[in-house]
């Protein structure tokens, strides 16, 4: 296996006295889905926030493609090719689906000074927006105002916006939460397709989805890594089995 595209080492985040994440290291590889699981409050979203620059790490480093990301502003990290979706839906509610995704695609072609051209007149931006909308399964909702959509559809929009920025690394924070079974299946399938050519970190509670797509798995407990390895290794880990009190985890059911 080649070198990881993103290598996070000993990341720590403290909020005042609370250590939300302690000494967590993760490696992400192109062509692989790295799933991160753990109970609520384990620090998974905080880890994502540090990788995306939403939060600066208290300590630790993040190497990506020759850059050090720790402490870098989120817009710069995004422009280097790291895209993310949010667990708590974070979209432009008053805009239509197309306008949400078009804005995401615009960030790759800002054309700050071309003020004499209308924003909707750039064929390349429109095309990447349309592609992302279709990939996330929102073609039928293209002109619906985001605020008027169901929670599940808003989750799909989160993913479409992430895709429209054409990232190399995707950080997906519980993308399936709140989606219906059909949409979930579609997104899992999409993640499987995106694997080719992308490095994906997937935070997810749905164990069926995790075992369907994950190449590697990290289990977090109380802000620290309990175990990391292939799904088989993690499943067989006595520490993990102990942490989850019994063997319900081994049968693929981890709803805490």
């Amino acid at each position: 296996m080649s070198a990881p595209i993103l290598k996070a080492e000993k990341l720590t985040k403290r909020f005042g006295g609370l250590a939300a994440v302690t000494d967590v290291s993760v490696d992400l590889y192109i062509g692989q889905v790295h799933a991160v699981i753990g109970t609520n409050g384990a620090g998974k979203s905080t880890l994502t926030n540090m990788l995306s620059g939403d939060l600066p790490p208290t300590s630790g480093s993040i190497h990506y493609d020759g850059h050090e990301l720790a402490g870098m502003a989120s817009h710069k990290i995004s422009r280097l090719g790291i895209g993310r979706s949010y667990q708590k839906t974070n979209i432009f509610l008053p805009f239509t689906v197309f306008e949400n995704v078009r804005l995401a695609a615009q960030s790759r072609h800002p054309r700050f000074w071309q003020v004499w051209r209308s924003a909707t007149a750039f064929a390349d931006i429109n095309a990447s927006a349309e592609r992302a909308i279709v990939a996330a399964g929102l073609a039928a909702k293209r002109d619906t105002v985001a605020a008027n959509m169901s929670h599940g559809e808003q989750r799909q929009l989160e993913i479409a916006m992430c895709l429209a920025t054409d990232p190399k690394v995707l950080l997906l924070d519980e993308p399936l939460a709140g989606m219906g079974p059909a949409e979930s299946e579609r997104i899992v399938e999409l993640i499987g397709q995106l694997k080719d050519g992308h490095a994906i970190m997937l935070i997810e509670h749905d164990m069926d989805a995790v075992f369907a797509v994950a190449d590697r798995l990290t289990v977090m407990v109380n802000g620290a890594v309990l175990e990391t390895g292939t799904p088989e290794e993690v499943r067989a880990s006595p520490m993990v089995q102990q942490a989850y009190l019994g063997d319900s985890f081994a049968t693929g059911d981890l709803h805490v």
Partner: protein
Amino acid sequence: MNKTSPTLLAVMVIVVAALAAFPFVGEKFYVQLVSKVMIMAIFAMSLDLLVGFAGLVSLGHAAFFGLAGYVAALMSPQYEAGNFWTTLPAAMAACAAFALITGFLVLRTSGIYFIMVTLAFAQMLFFIFHDTALGGGSDGIYIYVKPEMMLGDIKLLDLENFNVFYWLVLGCLVAVYLLLRQLLRSNFGHALIGIKTNDHRMRALGFPTFRYKLAAYVMSGALAGLAGYLAALQFGFVNPEILSWHTSGNVLMMVILGGMGTLHGAVVGAFSFILLQEVLSNQAFFGSVAKHWQLTMGLFIIAVALFLPKGLAGLFSRRGEK
């Protein structure tokens, strides 16, 4: 986002045509009143770019308005005409520079802090001109002769003629409206509206939102400078009052009254505010209450804020766009 309906477009064409024709029928007093209104409309539109589109509520916009006026006055020889082609760009450039420098600081704050810091910068300018001899202290400076607009040896426009000056102001109003409208339709404008809606998400998508806000702030300051320059010429003097927080408050009220985030709302707001002020403070209509016109105006603005959240312009669009 920001499409102009055919009805609105038709209304605008009619309004501009009516404004252009007004000097042929209106008396001098009214021509100058409408000219003042149009200057304030430019001022209000420049503020709407910040408040209505970038989501930055400034209570210090008078800083730019007043600064441009002082630049115009200081650059005009006392008893001769200044040069329009140098004084106007200088006034607007001074405002842009002031916006660029202060913007680096004020745009690091948001919400109530943004309001306080913009106010503080405007007050600093107020006291600089009020308490030092630089701009004539609290008496200000007179502009006895309006700048000349020369093209070679030809006087392009005679700005001393109040009708000509009126048409110049109208031309500026239309130009600023069209400029801002196009700006807001561009990638830049869409990003600005995105930033107003969800700044954090815009950053996560890769937009350097600070730079966008700074560009809007500089643009807004320069256009407020255009309004301040025209106002100084029209009134023929500048004094610290044009930098005061009353001026900032009035223009903010115009934007809110007309409806934020529509541009034409700012124009409607400026017209309603100044015409209301004229009517409410007129003893022929309101007798002894006229002295307390600010009270009646306050009640009116409270009523608009409560019952017309989209401002007076929202009345048109609701009817026009059905």
